[in-house]
């Protein structure tokens, strides 16, 4: 008969052990938690934010809320311009946009996809105030003068059909409210004055879509004020003019009559778009689907390929230069190898900028290296080598900077290879070269793998060194990202390029973790 083991307080042993294990796990997590939260807040969320920014595109829908709504019923593949309703919505949206001065921002955003559109928005913003917007206001007041009073809108907005049956008017009225607040201060009351003419145009376009049932509801409303307003409006509104905004916009800027511009606005209306990713691979979405950009605008694919090739080249040079050094350090007696190790560790510990400035000084046309070559007579004084501001500069400098990252993992792997393996091979008749090729070298492959992935990961994301010694030909994708963040301000594209680079690095990181294990990273 099996009796259950118990601890001194009578608990079954397995329960007691499980409890202890739980407590231990909890303690470990409590210790890790502060850093984990810290890293999630200050590092992971910024990166997620960047991923979000690479697809985020609320600016179009936020700046032109009514236009994007009205554009949904337009066929971007047809050869007709949008309807009068769209232009009326545009007038209303632009009026507010120029008041709060966001139309130029929208213009620059659209300009990334449709060059030239920015100036159209700038010009239109200046001229929008001169737009004649009285056409529907007049039509409504001719039917009933009460339409010109603010009370008419208050009555309409109280009705149960608002805002569902009045999509355009409700956006237009909100725009109006924002306009008043921006114009007169936050405590201004938009319900105290009757809205500007654009709102009446929006109402006109909404009325056209009302069903007769909805008309009945409105004209037989409990609110006598509202029913009076809608009395006879249905019959009268049939003869309302359709509007003259299209004409006025075409006068303002020819671009408003071009299908391309409207297609761009239509395509970028959604709040989430993939346009930045297509731009990152030199493609764009047009009405004919995704096509390659014109030849002179293709830069990113070339840049990605160059980044990869140069990183491979740098990794390869690091293997070539690092292998002999690691071998020497691993085979010399400890005392000597510790001394020589300083020559590897000192560059490793020296500031990146110090090393980069050193190379910048050495590689210049009038720099030390060229001077020595001229003095030796290897090159003429008048054709000094161009060693900097090109690919050569980047490769020489980055190999130097990343070399310790290759030597250290190689060294720690070679240290574990017993010399008796090679001795055994030789005792059985292998030549030096054969013993190296068949015995020693295969044993060092894990070290080469670890060092190569590390160097490659560090290399493809490098920014500072290529920026300083790479000129225009020797720069990496990172430099383009930095350019878009600080100079061209195309943050969406910067985020998309960054996300692509990030994915590449994370795949390599995953591979590194598989092969080497992040626990085994050694420093110095």
């Amino acid at each position, binding site marked *: 008969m099996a009796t259950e083991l118990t601890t001194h307080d009578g608990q079954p042993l397995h329960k007691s052990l499980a409890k202890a294990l739980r407590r231990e*796990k909890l*303690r*470990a*997590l409590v*210790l*890790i938690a*502060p*850093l*984990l939260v*810290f*890293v*999630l807040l*200050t*590092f*992971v969320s*910024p*990166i997620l*934010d*960047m991923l979000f920014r690479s697809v985020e595109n609320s600016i179009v829908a936020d700046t032109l809320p009514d236009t994007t709504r009205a554009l949904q019923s337009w066929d971007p593949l047809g050869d007709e311009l949008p309807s009068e309703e769209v232009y009326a919505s545009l007038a209303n949206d632009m009026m507010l946009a120029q008041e709060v001065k966001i139309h130029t921002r929208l213009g620059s955003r659209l300009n990334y996809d449709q060059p030239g559109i920015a100036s159209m928005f700038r010009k239109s913003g200046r001229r929008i105030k001169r737009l004649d917007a009285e056409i529907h206001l007049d039509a409504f007041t001719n039917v009933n003068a009460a339409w010109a009073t603010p009370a008419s809108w208050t009555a309409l907005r109280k009705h149960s059909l608002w805002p569902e049956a009045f999509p355009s008017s409700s956006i237009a009225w909100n725009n109006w409210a924002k306009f008043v607040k921006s114009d007169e201060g936050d405590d201004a009351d938009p319900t105290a004055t009757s809205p500007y003419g654009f709102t009446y145009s929006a109402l006109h376009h909404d009325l056209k879509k009302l069903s007769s049932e909805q008309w009945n509801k409105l004209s037989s409303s409990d609110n006598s004020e509202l029913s009076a307003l809608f009395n006879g409006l249905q019959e009268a509104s049939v003869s309302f003019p359709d509007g003259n905004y299209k004409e006025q916009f075409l006068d303002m800027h020819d671009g408003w009559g071009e299908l391309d511009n409207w297609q761009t606005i239509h395509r970028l209306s959604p709040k989430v778009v993939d346009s930045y990713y297509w731009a990152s691979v030199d493609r764009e979405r047009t009405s004919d689907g995704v096509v390659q950009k014109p030849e002179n605008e293709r830069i990113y694919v070339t840049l990605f390929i160059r980044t990869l090739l140069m990183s491979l080249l740098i990794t390869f040079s690091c293997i070539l230069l690092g292998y*002999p*050094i690691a071998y020497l350090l691993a085979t010399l007696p400890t005392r000597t190898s510790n001394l020589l190790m300083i*020559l*590897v*560790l000192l*560059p490793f*510990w*020296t*500031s*990146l*900028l110090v*090393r*980069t*400035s*050193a190379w*910048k*000084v050495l590689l210049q046309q*009038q*720099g*030390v290296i060229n*001077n020595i070559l001229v003095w030796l007579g290897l090159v003429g004084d008048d054709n000094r080598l161009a060693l900097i501001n090109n690919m050569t500069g980047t490769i020489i400098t980055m190999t*130097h900077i990343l070399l310790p990252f290759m030597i250290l993992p190689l060294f720690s792997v070679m240290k574990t290879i017993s010399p008796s393996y090679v001795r055994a091979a030789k005792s059985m008749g292998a030549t*030096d070269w054969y013993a190296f090729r068949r015995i020693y070298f295969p044993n060092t492959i894990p070290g080469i793998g670890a060092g190569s992935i590390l160097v490659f990961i560090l290399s493809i*994301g490098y*920014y*500072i060194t290529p920026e*300083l010694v790479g000129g225009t030909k020797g720069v990496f994708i*990172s430099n383009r*990202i*930095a350019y878009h*963040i600080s100079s061209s301000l195309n943050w969406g594209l910067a985020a998309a390029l*960054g996300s692509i*680079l*990030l994915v590449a*690095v994370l795949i390599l*990181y995953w591979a590194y973790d598989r092969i080497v294990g*992040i*626990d085994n*990273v*050694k*420093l110095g």
Partner: protein
Amino acid sequence: MSSLPAYASTGQRIWHYTFRYGICGLIFFYLITPILVIIPLSFNAQDFFTFTEKMLKLDPEGYSTKHYQDFFTNNDWQLALRNSFRIAPMATLLATAFGTLAAIGLSQPHVPFRRAIMAILISPMIVPLIISAAGMYFFYARINLQGYWSIVLAHAVLGTPFVIITVTATLVGFDKSLTRAAASLGATPVRTFFKVQMPLIIPGVVSGALFAFITSFDEVVAVLFLGSAKTKTLPWQMFTGLREQISPTILAVATIMIAISILLLTVLELLRRRSERLRGITPT
């Protein structure tokens, strides 16, 4: 390879010496010369970036400390130096405190999701700086975090992986029975930590802190994006100097920074030896 056997053939001898003094010599030369060359260049009496004839003749007139004087009197450089020394210690403190705790947690025998947590905690070291800096630039602007603290937080998080790695490495050799002995003698966990564990892992903590310090002290990408002219640091000033118009003062600064690295390297080496002695590992 360590030494040639007496029976080595002529070919083997030639290869041995070519390899050791030719190939490896050249690679060491490539590794170390750029750093050594700028030290004498920083004492150039002229505003050139190459050795003048007077310098080559070792004429004292060819040398001067005027670039160093410029560094110590120029307001831009002095502001940058002060900022560097304001930012780095704070970032180091944060990184070391959080990193040490987490490393102790991670070295417990039973940690759920250990691999995933480790991957996240080490990622600041792996993700390209330009991506981290860009993300922080967007995100910190969104939550309206600017200036000094944004840089300190960025540098702290970039430094934590180094602290974790070094402290974890010290904890690997830590003898668990020591804490058990302390507990059996009636010490509370907190007392055990400060009296037994802490003194033994302190070399790892200090070298982690040094790594975190040098990370912050050296870091330029995050400062470029998050900082302004008011919060510029030494690397920021060097970077803009190198990009716009390179002034010889940079070489003086570089030499000072090399001196700092040598100092740090020495401290680290001494710590490593102390740690090995404490843990009873005799140097091989």
